[in-house]
């Protein structure tokens, strides 16, 4: 562990000059030459509105430019800054330091995702599994060939899936899932919830196709309803609900 005291000379445009401060522990790991994670510690002042992402960016600006972190929108919309914060998957931009109630904040890359470097992880597998469940409306008459050119839907029909369309593909659910901790082939809560999002869409006719895709040895049946995915979702998607409702079709509870 390396302790780097004091601030560098450089000035920040948004100075964090509060009397309160926390110790930010950042996991450093480069798969090219490191065998295991090392933690760097930084003393960071914070205000009650300071987010973990802002604290990490403060470190990047003043202490260690090399910290690798992926971020973009800073408002829980792009789903880029997912990481393990004090042991739980969270969006760094959506997590205020003050709400963690701890003087030590430990940030690590998300579990169940290969590490690129430090806090940045690869999303290829998440996008692959997402793509695998055909995340788009399937029907024979497409907009291009249909005379009507639009598919009407009642507000009640919209309610059936709108919650699941809030998914920002941040990967927190896959990171929290206990099955994914050991099963590299599991399709995962993110993709399964998206399968439900389209199956429940009244415009979609691809239910049978999708149910067939997820009915395999590492498909929907490897979910055991532990619900950790729903507890960490920053958008209220509740993947566990979607998965169980989807499984309801396969067990004959729904048609």
């Amino acid at each position, binding site marked *: 562990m390396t302790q780097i005291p004091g601030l560098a000379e450089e000035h920040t445009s948004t100075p964090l000059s509060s009397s309160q401060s926390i110790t930010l522990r950042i996991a450093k790991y480069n798969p090219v030459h490191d065998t295991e994670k090392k933690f760097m510690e930084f003393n960071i002042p914070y205000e009650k509105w300071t987010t973990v992402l802002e604290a990490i960016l403060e470190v990047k600006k003043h202490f260690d430019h090399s910290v690798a972190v992926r971020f973009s929108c800073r408002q829980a919309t792009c789903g880029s800054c997912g990481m393990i914060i004090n042991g739980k998957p969270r969006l760094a931009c959506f997590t205020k330091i003050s709400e963690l109630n701890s003087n030590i904040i430990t940030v690590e890359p998300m579990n169940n995702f290969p590490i690129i470097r430090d806090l940045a992880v690869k999303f290829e597998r998440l996008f692959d599994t997402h793509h695998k469940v055909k995340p788009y409306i399937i029907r024979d008459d497409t907009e291009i060939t249909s005379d009507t050119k639009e598919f009407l839907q009642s507000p009640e029909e919209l309610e059936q899936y709108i919650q699941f369309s809030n998914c920002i593909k941040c990967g927190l659910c896959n990171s929290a899932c206990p099955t994914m901790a*050991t099963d590299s*082939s599991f399709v995962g809560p993110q993709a399964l919830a998206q399968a439900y999002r389209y199956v429940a869409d009244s415009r979609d006719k691809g239910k049978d196709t999708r149910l067939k895709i997820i*009915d395999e*040895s*590492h498909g929907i*049946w*490897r979910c055991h309803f532990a619900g950790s995915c729903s507890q960490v979702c920053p958008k209220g998607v509740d993947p566990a609900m979607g998965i169980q409702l989807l499984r309801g079709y*396969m*067990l004959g509870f729904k048609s």
Partner: protein
Amino acid sequence: MRESIIMKIHYGSALAAVGLVAVHILMRLTQGYAESLEYANVIRNYHFLPYAGMLEIILILLSIHGFIGLRVILLELKQGRIYEKVISYSCFIAMIGLITYGTRTIIMVNMG
């Protein structure tokens, strides 16, 4: 076999076994726990054909449920085509083995 069929068998065998296991345990309690385990009592149970039949059904249901459950856990621990085939067949063989061994006890005691 499709995974959904395997899991429906897993759930179905569990539900069916719950009632029968309850009867099996109640038989121990209604006769008095220690008395019910006496040799003569146990032999009498095995000779009573409906009870012996129930034991056989419990044996089959719990073997199926138990080994499908074990297969699920093992499939989640490690992946790979060969590993998964080995696990699936091993669990099936172990299930058949256990059913055969238990059936042998039930039949031999019931017949003799």
